C-alpha cells in the first residue's frame, strides 16, 4: 500500500510515543442499513437517481408503498415494503433498502466472461465497468440477490456502484447523505459491524425483539452492505432477503471444474486426431492400394 509509506512506526531520538503508531487503518468500507429506524420515506431512492443522473422511473402500484417490484437498470436503490402479521396478530410494516450488497465473494464477478467488466476494489466496492461490459447477462445468473439489471437500449448491465465516484474522493454515498432518520450509516466495515451489533443487542434487550440481529451473510464472504433486522432469523420477510445467499453451485461448477474439463476435452480431441493421423495416415482408395501393392 502506497499509503503505508506515510505512516511512521519508529522515530529516532524521539522522546515519548510515536504519534499515530499502532493506528489501525481499515480500507474496507461498509454501508449499514438499520431497518428498525427506516421510515420508508424513499429519500435514498431520490438521492440515488439525482446523483447518478437518472430520471425518476414510472412507478408500479400494487397496493403497497413500494415504488416498483424490483430494482431496475436505472433504479438501483429501492425500499421494499412488507406488511407482516406477527404470531400475536399485531402488524409490522417492514421496510428494507434494497441495493447491491457488494459481496466479498461476488457472484456477478465470478460469472462475468468479459475482461475487466467487473472489478472489486480493495475497499470492498464491486463496480461494473460499462465500457468493458458486453451485455451477456451472465452476472444476472451469478448474483444471489437479483441485483444486476440489463438495459435494452445500452445493451449493458447496470447496478449500484456504492457511489464509488463519491467514496473515492472522501464523500459518503448519496443515499447515506439523504437519509433523514439516520437509519443509514457509512464507515469502515469493522465500525459498522460494531455499531450494528450494538444496535441489535439494544433491540434484543430494551425493545423486546428477541431475534434482532445483523445480516452480514457468510455464504458470500460477508457483504459491504449490512442490515440490522428485528427478526434476523427470517430475513425473507424483508422483501425476499435470502437466508443463506451463496454463488449458485451451477455458476461455481461452470466457472470452475467445467472449464477445465471442457478445455482438456477439446485439447484431448485435437491431440487424439493428430495422433491418429500420425499412426494411420489418410485413407486410400482401392486403386491407390493396388498401386501400392496392397490387397483389395
Amino acid at each position: 500500500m502506497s499509503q503505508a509509506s506515510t505512516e511512521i512506526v519508529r522515530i529516532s531520538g524521539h522522546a515519548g510515543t510515536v504519534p499515530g503508531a499502532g493506528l489501525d487503518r481499515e480500507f474496507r468500507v461498509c454501508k449499514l442499513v438499520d431497518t428498525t429506524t427506516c421510515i420508508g420515506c424513499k429519500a435514498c431512492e431520490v438521492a440515488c437517481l439525482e446523483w447518478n443522473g437518472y430520471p425518476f422511473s414510472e412507478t408500479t402500484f400494487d397496493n403497497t408503498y413500494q415504488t416498483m417490484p424490483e430494482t431496475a437498470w436505472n433504479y438501483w436503490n429501492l425500499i421494499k415494503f412488507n406488511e407482516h402479521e406477527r404470531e400475536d396478530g399485531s402488524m409490522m410494516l417492514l421496510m428494507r433498502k434494497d441495493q447491491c450488497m457488494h459481496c466479498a465473494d461476488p457472484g456477478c464477478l465470478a460469472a462475468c466472461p468479459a475482461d475487466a467488466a467487473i472489478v472489486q476494489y480493495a475497499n470492498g466496492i464491486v463496480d461494473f465497468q460499462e465500457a468493458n461490459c458486453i451485455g451477456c447477462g451472465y452476472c444476472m445468473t451469478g448474483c444471489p440477490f437479483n441485483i444486476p439489471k440489463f438495459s435494452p437500449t445500452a445493451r449493458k448491465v447496470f447496478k449500484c456502484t456504492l457511489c464509488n465516484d463519491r467514496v473515492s474522493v472522501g464523500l459518503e454515498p448519496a443515499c447515506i447523505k439523504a437519509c433523514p432518520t439516520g437509519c443509514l450509516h457509512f464507515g469502515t466495515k469493522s465500525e459498522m459491524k460494531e455499531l450494528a451489533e450494538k444496535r441489535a443487542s439494544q433491540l434484543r434487550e430494551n425493545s423486546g425483539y428477541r431475534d434482532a440481529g445483523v445480516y452480514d451473510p457468510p455464504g458470500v464472504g460477508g457483504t459491504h452492505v449490512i442490515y440490522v433486522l428485528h427478526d434476523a432469523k427470517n430475513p425473507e420477510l424483508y422483501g425476499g432477503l435470502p437466508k443463506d445467499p451463496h454463488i449458485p453451485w451451477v455458476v461455481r461448477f461452470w466457472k470452475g471444474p467445467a472449464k477445465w474439463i471442457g478445455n482438456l476435452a477439446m485439447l484431448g480431441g485435437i491431440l487424439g486426431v493428430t495422433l491418429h493421423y500420425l499412426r494411420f495416415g489418410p485413407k486410400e482408395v482401392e486403386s491407390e492400394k493396388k498401386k501400392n501393392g496392397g490387397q483389395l
Partner: protein
Amino acid sequence: MSASHIATSRPTEDRSWGDILRYTFIERVHHWLGALFYIYCLITGLAFWSPYMYWMAALVGGGPTARFWHPWFGLAFALSVGWMYKMWRGDLATTDADRRWSKSINHYIANEDEELPPVGRFNFGQKLFFWLMFYGVILLLISGLGLWFVESIPWSLRWVRYLAVTVHVVAAMATIGAFIIHIYMSVFMEPESFYAMIHGRVSAAWARTFHRLWYEQVTGDKSQK
C-alpha cells in the same frame, strides 16, 4: 463401369474433379452456410467460455458485437441444420448395413477399409455426426433462448437461468467434439470428400471404396465387387 450416363445427369458440373456427383450445388451451399454459422458461434462461444480465449471476440468485432450476433448466427445455424435434415433425411436413417459397419468400426479406425461391409451414401459415423449436431442444435437453441433473454426470466424462475447455462455448455461441448472429428475426417483422412463438398464430384474409385452401396445405386454397376 458406366460413368457416362451419370455425367449426363449433371452436364454443368465440372467433371475434372471426378465422375460421380456426390453433392449438388444446393447441398454444397447449405453445407457451407451451416459451416459459416457454426464457426462464427464456435469462435464467439469460446470467447465467452474462457478468459484465455476472450481474444477470439476481437476477431469478429469485439465482445459486445460478438454478444449481439452470436444468438442470431446460432438461430441461422439451427435453420441451416433444419434445411440439411430436409435435404438428407432419406440418407440418414440407420440401416442394417450401418449396423454391420458399426460392429467393425475398429477396421475403419485402423484404415482397413477393405475389411468393412459396404455402406450407402453416408456411413454410420457420418450419420452419428448429423444426429449429434441435429439434437445438439435443438438443445443449444432452447437453452440459448434462456441466455439470450436472461433478463426476461423472472427471479422466481431463476433455476431456468441455471439450467440454460448448464445445457448450453454441455451441448456446445458435445458439438465441438463432433466438429473436431468432422474436420479431421473430411480434410485430413479423406481429402477427396473435402473436394467433393467444394466441387461436388468424387472419383468412381473413391465412391466404390468408401460408399459401395451408394456407388452401385448411382451407377447401376455391381461388376466390380
